[in-house]
């Protein structure tokens, strides 16, 4: 069985301006969401604060939970955000407070008892100090930067700087777009998102490397070549491979997203978007960038080989 029985001839590179505009729009949208979400885009891992996972029982509703927190005599829960996990009776309550963890817990239990009686259970509680959160956020940022730089260096070392440029731009693109959609559906950036971002960076470069590998192989085979044709050809030859590997990894990621629950959902949503963006950016971002970069630096690849 074959997905694509005859290798197609598609001029991906010439369609690049269009795809670049499309990606640019998505990136602008991400920047907008990033700004619009303000501080609440970060989970307590990265800004500090309190988070409780409350399970509602015997038909207690989210509205009752929210009312219980609003009517509490204390000011601790004033800015509380309630987030519900789809298809679950578990709800996360998040807020920041200068009070001691002990006091916060007592007040929360009192407020929930007053509003819900015995129809709740606290499954999980987290407190992260604000300075510690800030520190974790900086570390997370450093991790993303290091991974991007590390992979760029690796690709430069294994291929050529022009290829590394393509990879770097494509990876930035994937992480930004995955972050945008992740934030847009209401998730917050936390440790799970960091794990997913780094996985996307490590994984989405794979398709790109496979194409570059093919391009390099053809460069060595042929005496005379046009880089644009070669990139297009490699993309076409590898098209079924790109699609199949992406789909197979998506099987895992989607199944984690749909059936995984809790923290796994956060992680896999980011992954799913990142994996799709990664396949798209291989063809429509990374390859055109290599071509443009190379044309600008006047045929460095050609010199190398001849």
């Amino acid at each position, binding site marked *: 069985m074959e997905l694509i029985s005859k290798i197609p001839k598609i001029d991906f590179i010439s369609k690049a301006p269009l795809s670049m505009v499309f990606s640019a729009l998505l990136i602008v949208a991400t920047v907008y969401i990033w700004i619009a979400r303000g501080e609440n885009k970060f989970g307590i891992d990265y800004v500090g604060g309190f988070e409780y996972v409350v399970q509602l029982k015997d038909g207690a509703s989210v509205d009752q939970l929210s009312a219980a927190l609003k009517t509490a005599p204390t000011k601790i829960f004033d800015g509380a955000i309630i987030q519900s996990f789809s298809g679950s009776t578990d709800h996360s309550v998040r807020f920041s407070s200068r009070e001691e963890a002990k006091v916060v817990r007592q007040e929360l239990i009192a407020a929930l008892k007053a509003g819900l009686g015995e129809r709740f259970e606290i499954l999980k509680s987290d407190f992260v100090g604000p300075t*510690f959160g800030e520190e974790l956020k900086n570390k997370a940022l450093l991790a993303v930067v290091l991974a991007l730089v590390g992979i760029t260096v690796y690709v430069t070392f294994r291929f050529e700087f022009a290829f590394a440029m393509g990879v770097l731009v494509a990876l930035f693109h994937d992480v930004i777009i995955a972050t945008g959609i992740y934030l847009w559906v209401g998730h917050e950036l936390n440790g*799970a998102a960091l*794990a997913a971002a780094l996985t996307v960076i490590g994984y989405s470069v794979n398709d790109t490397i496979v194409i570059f590998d093919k391009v390099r192989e053809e460069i060595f085979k042929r005496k005379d070549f046009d880089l644009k044709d070669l990139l297009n050809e490699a993309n076409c030859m590898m098209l079924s491979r790109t699609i199949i590997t992406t789909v197979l*990894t998506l099987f895992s*990621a989607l199944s984690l997203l749909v059936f995984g629950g809790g*923290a796994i959902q956060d*992680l*896999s949503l980011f992954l799913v978007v990142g994996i799709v963006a990664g396949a798209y950016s291989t063809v429509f971002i990374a390859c055109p960038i290599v071509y443009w970069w190379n044309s600008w630096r006047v045929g460095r690849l050609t010199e190398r080989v001849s």
Partner: protein
Amino acid sequence: MDTSVRNRLIVFLASLVLAVVFLIPTFFPDKFTDRGSWISRPIGLGLDLSGGVHLVYQVEGDEAVNSQLLTKANSIRADLRELKIPVLKTGLDSKGQLEITLASNRRTEEAKNKIAEAYSDLNFVDSVPDGERIRLVYSVSELNREKIKTQAMARTIETLRNRVDQFGVAEPLIQKVGSDRVMLQMPGVQDIEAVKRVVGSVAKLEFRLIPTVTGTAGQVMMKDRSGVPIAVEDQALMTGDSVDNARVSVESGQVEVMLSLNSEGTRAFRKITTENTGRQLAIILDNTVYSHPSIREPITQGSASISGGFKIEEATQLAIVLRAGALPAPLKAIEERTVGPTLGKESIRSGISAILIGFVAIVLFMIVYYQKSGALAVFSLFINGFLLIAFLSAFGATLTLPGIAGLGLTLGMAVDSNVIVFERIREELRNGAGRDAAVSAGFDRAYSAIMDANMTTLLSAVILYFLGNGPVRGFAVTLSIGVLTTVYCAVFVSRLGFDLLPLRGKKELSI
């Protein structure tokens, strides 16, 4: 059979045997409870799955330095008293420098010489005249500060170990994080406040006299347990260092903590009670006055008791901290997490079903699309999962919720390597290569792409391990080990399959 194939088959079978050996403890966890009895351990569950308490404490090292300085101040005061140089007061200024105020400036040089001679680690900073009085200011060198902090850190960990051991929890984890932090994990525990009371309180015990006349010099105000202010002398006559053991006693409904003093403490206590019969002695814990009984007669047998309307639970916790000793510095909780016992079970169940569903989809696709070769890829995927779990066990890794996701994802990414090879073989077949030539070229040419793809994933995973926090590090661990098993399975195991099995279909190769 060709020798190369035979040798590779032996290596493959050996790796399976090794994996089984690694996995024995995981399948029979009851028989391998103690560490070191086998080369691997049962795969443990991370706190996010097992439930329990996770705490990260910041050790306030500066406070340890301050408290050492104040102890020094007391002994300087005593030394100068021997030289008949009265010290009016001692204390720390805002920069953490030690201030010693002499009642008169006539014998300043003598005092300075004595201090310079006996306390070489103190650096003289300044002397500030104040009428008749004079204030001497001393500092500690940065090197000494660091030394004190390092010692405080070591003692904190030791004391926490002692306290946690007495808490009676299976497999607690105490770990130094960075230069000034301690991480503490206690699986199965839910009451984080109780943990913080026992583990996190400084437990500085002091015995001080209550002044007979209030409002004179040499007194400080403290509060008792109900918050009522009470004046006590500013010098402690005895501290928790004199305590040898502590236990709870209940007599006619009154809960007390009985202290047995060590020999030095017994001597000191005898002296205190003899010299101060009739006065009140305050028993102070972390700057709160617990009780202040009157000394009726000299106490010689070396025991004291703290009462104060305790509940049994409270007294038990107090006895634990007094036995384990005081912390050299206060602790500040910067991260506190508790996970209930039910959450983890649900998570494991849904996580595993998610992996299985994804896996079934992959299996179906591979067999339909690549037929017999696809079946071989599925076999190699099984081996991959098996080896991955075995290596997790060999490294004593714990499985966290993100770690489960890592397991599922690894399988999804691992099959990519097979696809790269298979597509390459198809290409070679299309170009007219024979079966063996196509297989051989397929693996050889796909090799560099497979290595590159896995190296970049490994790079990301390692960065995540070092810069991530908490359970996501479990994800990094599964992903990293997964990369290694994937390369082995895709390059070595699948290749062996092609060399060993005919994998014939309608054509020469079913792919």
